[in-house]
């Protein structure tokens, strides 16, 4: 550790900024989660004795939200499957591309920076012109572009577990490219594949802007929620937002813990 970073006021200042950063990210949504357990109509922290699941129970009766949830789960599953498969291929390609690596990396990452509304609008006019009616597949097409860069980066990072020497050894023992992939690379990057799938799923489930121009008759969940949020929010929306937020956190935490566990196993 660098000695001059050890001065006390400096350390306090650095940690304080870190705490502010985390508070800005986490306090509002966690407050929303707490509010969702308050049976009163007026949003406020519930007293401990008042904690209730009223709004969560009421949620089951919200037909439009539930069918939107179903649609979103379908879109997210398709997006995650395709994104993981493409990201795996892209990461394997990256390893082989030599001096083209940087350009390839940039190419796969770029769609992430296209504003969602613009990407969705451009896709919807193209689909419209070729006569493709909007349905869950058109939404998944746009979500794929948003999820792929993340899935690609995650799998690429997990490739660090595959040492060149492992592959050379396999190759010396006569393993073909395919056998090396199936018997060496894939088992080593399995945590990365699972992470890529779950992350892509969540990115799709939570994506709002890209779907706007691409949904058919059935809204996706974020679009349905957007409507509810802006029409004098009934507290059921807090329950739904809260549970989606918590579920997302738990899923990411699971991925990170699993990655850490397999990391440890490798190092042993």
């Amino acid at each position, binding site marked *: 550790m660098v000695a*001059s970073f050890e001065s006390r006021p400096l350390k306090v200042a*650095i940690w304080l900024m*870190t705490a502010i950063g985390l508070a800005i990210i986490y306090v509002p949504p966690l407050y929303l989660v707490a509010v969702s357990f308050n049976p009163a109509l007026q949003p406020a922290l519930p007293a401990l004795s008042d904690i209730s699941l009223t709004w969560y129970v009421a949620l089951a009766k919200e037909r439009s939200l539930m069918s939107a949830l179903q649609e979103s789960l379908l879109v997210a599953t398709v997006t995650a499957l395709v994104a993981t498969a493409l990201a795996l291929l892209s990461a394997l390609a990256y390893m082989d591309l030599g001096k083209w690596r940087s350009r390839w990396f940039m190419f796969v990452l*770029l769609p992430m920076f296209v504003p969602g*509304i613009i990407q969705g609008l451009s896709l919807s006019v193209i689909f419209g012109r070729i006569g493709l009616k909007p349905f869950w597949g058109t939404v998944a097409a746009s979500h794929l572009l948003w999820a792929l860069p993340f899935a690609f980066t995650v799998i690429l990072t997990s*490739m660090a577990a595959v040492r060149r020497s492992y592959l050379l050894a396999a190759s010396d023992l006569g393993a073909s490219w395919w056998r090396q992939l199936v018997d060496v690379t894939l088992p080593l990057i399995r945590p990365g594949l699972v992470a890529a799938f779950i992350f892509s799923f969540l990115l799709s489930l939570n994506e709002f802007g890209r779907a706007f121009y691409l949904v058919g008759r059935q809204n996706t969940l974020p679009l349905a929620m957007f409507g509810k949020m*802006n029409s004098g929010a009934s507290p059921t929306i807090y329950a739904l937002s809260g549970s989606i*937020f918590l579920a997302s956190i738990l899923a990411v935490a699971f991925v990170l813990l699993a990655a850490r566990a397999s990391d440890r196993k490798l190092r042993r």
Partner: protein
Amino acid sequence: MKSPGFLLALPTALIVLLLGFVPLIVILVWSFWTWDPATYWIRPELSLAGYEAILEAGRWSVILGSLGKAFLTATICVVIGYPAAMAVHFLASRRTALLLMALFTIPFFTSYMIRAFSWRLVLGRNGLINGWLTGTGIIDQPLDWLLFSNFAVNVGLVASYLPFVIFPLILSMQRVEPSLLAASQDLGAGFWRTFRSVLLPLTQAGIFAGFLFVFVMAAGSATEVQMLGGAAASMISVMINDVMRVVNFPLAFAISTVVLIILFGLIFIGNRLFKLTRLFEGFTW
């Protein structure tokens, strides 16, 4: 080993090109076509009407305003994110560093809409902050400017995109040779001196990458303004939605084109100047 690299890249290349880039290029071309009120569509006659319309009705000021908001957001994110990255890289124990990185990773995969929406509960008239301020007697009347204001939008944008600045910064700090910092100290430089003349210059690629990521994401954002902005508040994406409500395709395409050229121009210039992709090549085979 035989090298199937290009073959492996093919499916992704096709998908990204066909779904990602071709539609954008097509709307770029179509932004120069003529609006045909008879068909509610455009016909292939050169027209700059879309671009002329950008100059009307304060649309330029919305574009500039969005870029201004994005600039402010990115600056604040760097100011908060740099110390946070320092905490992760220089101060935290391994366990704490992993925990912090996890906490900064999680928000990428949660809903931006829900997070923006939750600020309403914090900033509103009956919200957390006003409740606390009036409860403790600091003010008598709740503050109205906290919510549905530019202030709220900027807070929401910082909260949304702060994680984007952290990881480039951590990556760039990992590339700083610790002996350089030690040498600076041995030569008698205090923290600020070392910070200014060694750490800051060596991490400038990370600073720029982080700034750029936040800037681009914020400039293209919609939910934060829709959830937290005042009645007249606009943002590029919201303006495109408004234009599309009256199906003015050439104008929507022209705005999109201008915005994409600005954002992609920044990314390419940044990549040229700072070799941003190299930041992410921390691992080698």
